[in-house]
Structure formats: C-alpha cells, structure tokens
C-alpha cells in the first residue's frame, strides 16, 4: 500500500493548492459526487487549502444516505422475522428507519449480522439451510458487481434460502437530476473514480455536452482530489466542458467488461426513489426476472410501509448540494452520529457526519 503515500504528500498538495490559486479568476462551485471524496475532503481539511473562490458542495454519492426510508423500514421488517438471518454492511445498521434502526432490531433479539464481504452472506446461507438469509444490497455501481455476484453464486450453488434486498442506485441519472433542478449552482463535477472503475466514463460524455459542465473522473486520496479540482478549474476558466480522467491509474474509458457483463445478467435498470431527492427515472438496479427467486422484495411480503421522516432534517437539500450540514437547526444538537435524524449523519461518507467528526 506504499503507493498511496505519494497521493498523501504535503509538497504535492501544496503545489496543487498554489496552482489552483493561480488559475482562479472568479468564483466557481464544484460538486464532488462521491461520499468517499466528501470524507477525504473533511479528513484532510482540503477546504483549508483552497482559495475562497472555490466552493465545494457535497453530492448525493453516499449510498447509505440516499437509500429510501421505505427500503430501510422494509429491511427492518424482514430482519425482525424469526426465520431470517439479516446481513448487511456495517454502516447500514445505524441508519434510522421510521421508528428504529437495524442495531435496535439486533439488541431486541433479531439475528442481524454485519459482513465485510457480500459473499459472506452466501456462506452464511450455506451454513444455515433452515434459515432464510437476506443481504441488504445497497450502493452505487461500485458495489453492484460484488452484490450481484451473491445472486449469481447462490444460483450456481443451488441455494434456495438466499435473497438480496436490492436498493442499488446509479450516478449518471443523479448528475442529470441535479443539473436539471431549478436553482442548481453546480458548475463542475468530480465524478466518482471507483464507480468509473466499474462502468468506465463513456456515459458521462453526453452529460458534459448537454449541460456544458466539466466532469473530472477523480480518485480518493487528498492529492487526487486537489488534482481533480485543479483540472476542473482549468476547464471552467477556459470555458471548456469535457470529461477528463484524473484517476487514469485505475479507470479505463470502457470500465471493467467482466463486471459490466455480470451487472447486465443479474440486474435491470429501474426507476428508484432517492432519500431526500425523490424518484429519478432509470436511476437504479433491480434484480432481473431471471433471478426473481433471489429478490427479497418479491419473497417477503412486509405489508404497507408508512414512513415517517423527521421534519427538521434538511438531508434532501444537503444531498442536492443546496445547503451545508451546519445550516440545519438540528445539526450537532438533536442530530448526532449516536442519534442520527437523517442518513447523512450515519455513514462516515455522509456529509453531515463528515462535518460533525471533523469539526466544521
């Protein structure tokens, strides 16, 4: 992992910071899409290194944050069943549903297990043939191949007790939604490097063209992000709007063909509701007909879910980049990482949690 040091290097960061200062002649608003980048910006105090002309707004790229409340409530309802072992990545466990979170289900005796790899959930299903094992498949294009692999593998191994509760979302439709919104201030984007590792960046070309915004495919280390901002500022100042690949050490234009083939097999593109934003057409993955037998939503009838979103929470505006976390009346008061009102306070990738932890 030594290779990372050069992307966390103080001299390189200072040089880029100087170069950005030199090239800026007027204010620009740039959105980093990915929560991992938001986290790095806060963790490394990158805003400290930027001239005041540059405003960074934090996009909806935190999978935990945009998973709709209905889906969380569904997960909770399924996890409460005695015949179910509910498995999930760690940070989904504390996301508040309408009444409780998955950790509370666990504290009340539900069999809720945190896994590090989605394939662990398939193994749990193999080891517990008398239980129904559900994996909460959440995330963007980055995690979709891994989560999709569970379904393909469960099918291959002939498992009948495994299913995926699928709430996958896609980045390009979110960019399109944000740019189509009235009052949007975003003039340039840092696209999420890891999403593009899977998908490539061809699908961003028409977006840059249609909305006349530069889109920079950017990595996650502090020097990557500063470099992405630098490239974006260069384009903005020159009036260019192209897709540029800052993260070329990892991302290829065509992405990862094997992963894309798996996605095409296991998933269909569907409309999805985004927490805090609303329904975006063709913005997510749902499990394809071929694998319907592995779709937790079709297997478990959890009845009508009535959701109850806290009124004070401005997560929606934060996720759209319209407001900053500290502008929320509940920030750091009623809403803290121990007791989050909205999802952005849960995951370390959520803008609110990043602001809270790193003392903004």
């Amino acid at each position, binding site marked *: 992992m030594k290779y990372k040091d050069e992307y966390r290097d103080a001299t390189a960061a200072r040089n880029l910071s100087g170069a950005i200062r030199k090239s800026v002649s007027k204010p620009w608003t740039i959105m980093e899409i990915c929560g991992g980048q938001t986290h790095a910006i806060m963790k490394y105090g990158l805003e400290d290194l930027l001239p005041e002309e540059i405003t960074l707004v934090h996009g909806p790229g935190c999978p935990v944050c945009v998973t709709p409340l209905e889906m969380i409530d569904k997960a909770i309802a399924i996890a409460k069943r005695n015949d179910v072992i509910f498995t999930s990545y760690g940070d989904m466990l*504390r996301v508040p549903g309408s009444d409780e979170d998955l950790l509370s289900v666990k504290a009340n005796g539900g069999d809720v297990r945190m896994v590090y790899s989605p394939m662990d959930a398939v193994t749990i299903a193999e080891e517990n043939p008398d239980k129904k094992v559900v994996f909460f498949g959440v995330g963007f294009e980055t995690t979709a191949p891994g989560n999709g692999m569970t379904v393909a593998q469960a099918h291959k191994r002939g498992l009948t007790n495994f299913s995926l509760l699928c709430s996958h979302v896609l980045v390009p439709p979110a960019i399109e939604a944000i740019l189509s919104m009235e009052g949007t201030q975003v003039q340039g984007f840092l696209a999420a490097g890891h999403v593009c590792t899977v998908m490539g960046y061809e699908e961003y070309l028409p977006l840059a063209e249609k909305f006349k915004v530069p889109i920079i495919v950017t990595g996650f280390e502090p020097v990557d992000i500063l470099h992405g901002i630098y490239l974006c500022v260069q384009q903005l100042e020159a009036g260019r709007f192209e897709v540029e690949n800052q993260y070329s050490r990892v991302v290829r234009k065509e992405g990862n063909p094997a992963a894309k083939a798996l996605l095409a097999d296991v998933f269909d593109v569907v409309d999805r509701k985004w927490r805090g934003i609303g329904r975006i057409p063709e913005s997510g993955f749902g499990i394809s007909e071929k694998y319907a037998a592995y779709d937790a939503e079709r297997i478990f009838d959890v009845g009508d879910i009535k959701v109850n979103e806290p009124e004070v929470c401005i997560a929606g505006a934060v996720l759209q980049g319209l407001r900053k976390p500290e502008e929320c009346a509940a920030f750091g008061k009623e809403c803290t990482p*121990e007791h989050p009102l909205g999802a952005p306070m849960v995951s370390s990738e959520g803008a609110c949690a990043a602001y809270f932890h790193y003392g903004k």
Partner: protein
Amino acid sequence: MSDKPDIDLSGGFACPIPKSEYDKVLLAHGGGGTLSSQLIQKMFLPQFDNPMLNLEHDGAVFETGGARLAFSTDSYVVQPIFFPGGDIGELAVNGTVNDLAMCGAKPLYLSVGFIIEEGLPLDDLWRIVLSMKTAADKAGVQIVTGDTKVVDRGKGDKIFINTSGVGVIEEGVNSSPKNCRPGDKILLSGRIAEHGVTIMSAREGLEFESAVQSDSAPLNKMVEEMLAVSKNIRVLRDPTRGGVSSALNEIASAAGMGMLIDETKIPITETVRAACDILGLDPLYIANEGKLLAVVPAEDAEAVLAVMRKNEFGRHAAMIGEVLEENSGRVVMKTSIGSKRVVDMLSGEQLPRIC
C-alpha cells in the same frame, strides 16, 4: 448534546431513569466512545458519586496507613479468546496491570473472576490459566484471590474474565490530566491499532499480506523506568477502547486544554494502515492493549522518550504533539498533507463502510 433536561421527573419522586436516546443497551454503550461516556455521566457517576470516582481515572487512588494505593478493575469479553499475539487470559492480566501503571502505581496484587460457559474445553481453560501465570510473572504481580462461576451453555460466550488489582504509588508521583500545562509534550509508546485490527481480522477471517499481531503487553516496567527519569510526568493513559483519539480527548477535556498532534509522527505499520484503509476505519480510534500515552513537561520529554525507546515495548515510541492553552478540550491534528482538522471522540462503534 440535547437541549432536553437530563432527568425526566414525570415518573414521580422515585429516582427516575436518566433520559437516553435508546431504551435498551446497545453494543456501542460498551464501545468506549460517546455512548459509553453517556452511561458513565448519566447513570454511574451521579449515583455512585464520590471524589475518587469523579476523577474518572483508569483506577481510584487513595491513601491508607500512610501508603498511597491505586485500585482498578476491568472485565474481558474478547472474542475469539485466542488470537495472534495473545489470548483473553494474558489480556486480562496486562489490562489491569496497565490500568494501575497508568495511575503511576507499581502493580502488586490481582484478583481474578472467571465466568465460564458450560462446555468450554478444559484444555482451553488450561491454556488461559498458563498464559495468565506467564503474564503475571512477567509483570511481577501475584494473583492472590479469585472466583469461578459456570453459566448454562448459550448464556455466555466461552469465557469472560474480570481482574481487579491494587498497586502502590511512590511519593511524589501524581498522574492526572489536571497537571497538564501548555507546552507539555505528548509521547506515544509505539505503533497504534494493532490489537483492534488483529481481533477484527481474526473474528472476520480477514487476511492481510503480512500478519498483524495483538500488542498486548505489561507496561508497568516501562512506567517505572519513565518515572525514574521524571517524577513530573503529568498524566499517563493507555489508549485501549476508543483508541488514541478518545484517550487524548479525555485528557484534553479533563485538563481544560487543547492539544495539537502531528499525523506524520504517529507510529503505525504499513499493514495496519492498509487494513484500516480497506475497512474504512480510522486507526486513531482502534484499540491498543500494550501502548501508553504520556504528557510530559517539555524539559523532560527527550529523557523520558529515550528510556521508553530502550524498553522492549517502547522501541517505536515517538513525540506526537503538545499541549496548548487554546482550543480547550479539543484535539487538533496537523494532517499528512499539512492542513489541520479536529480529532473527535469516537461516536458509537466504528462501522466498516460500504465502499
């Protein structure tokens, strides 16, 4: 945290249960972070209220018969019970030895309480007992009293161990955050996060390129050597649960002073750093079982650091920062890229993130 009053009097005149955001105990209440701290602040301190407890040190310090004694207790519930670099028995001895050492005491006697789940192989218990004996010998303490309980299968998790201990504090030694002064140096005895990453890897079957081992170790000899060089050591703390960040925040907050630490000075191995990167965890919040933090007057810092580095458990000791008058209660870190950010207490459990 909340604007609501801490105590809800609507239940009448009986002692009401203090208001909390959860009505059940969650794992995070034992995680050493903010929820643990809320239990202590809202339930334990107000009811058990006394000057020794209220200091919230690793152990209580009191005088009797002309001697100053330190008294401390800790329970061990680690899973798995055997892990690379140690086991629950060694951890139980070293943990209490270290808690006493952090009071500036020379640990003398330990008690041990076993809570054993029916069905534990006697071979496993024997391994644990032998390992406790070895650890006690190494630390120079004796296990002088004990208790054993067995619970039904399924009512425990193999074995839980409680140890308590007493130690004696030499004249002139006083380890307390209140002693901190602006300009004091912050010393850290070695590479961080090894115990926590080892346990997580062992528990989840994660494998990294090079093996990670728990750093479980008795620190009392090193503390003795440090105190021999400077009796003015302000405060000692072992950054166990909640890691270096939580320990520094506790000291800063109790001292009413700020701290500035330098990320590039914090010792950590490449493997542990990489493991934390992969899992999305911050090593500053991960548990250590054989490390200490010391706040030392600037003029004594080099000498204390030198004796730490000569000790087998302090070879990688480093000066990581200093105490400031400003930013009372806050720990600020100069990051590896030269910017500054606040390092906060751990909130809840650290949960590995999705991507």
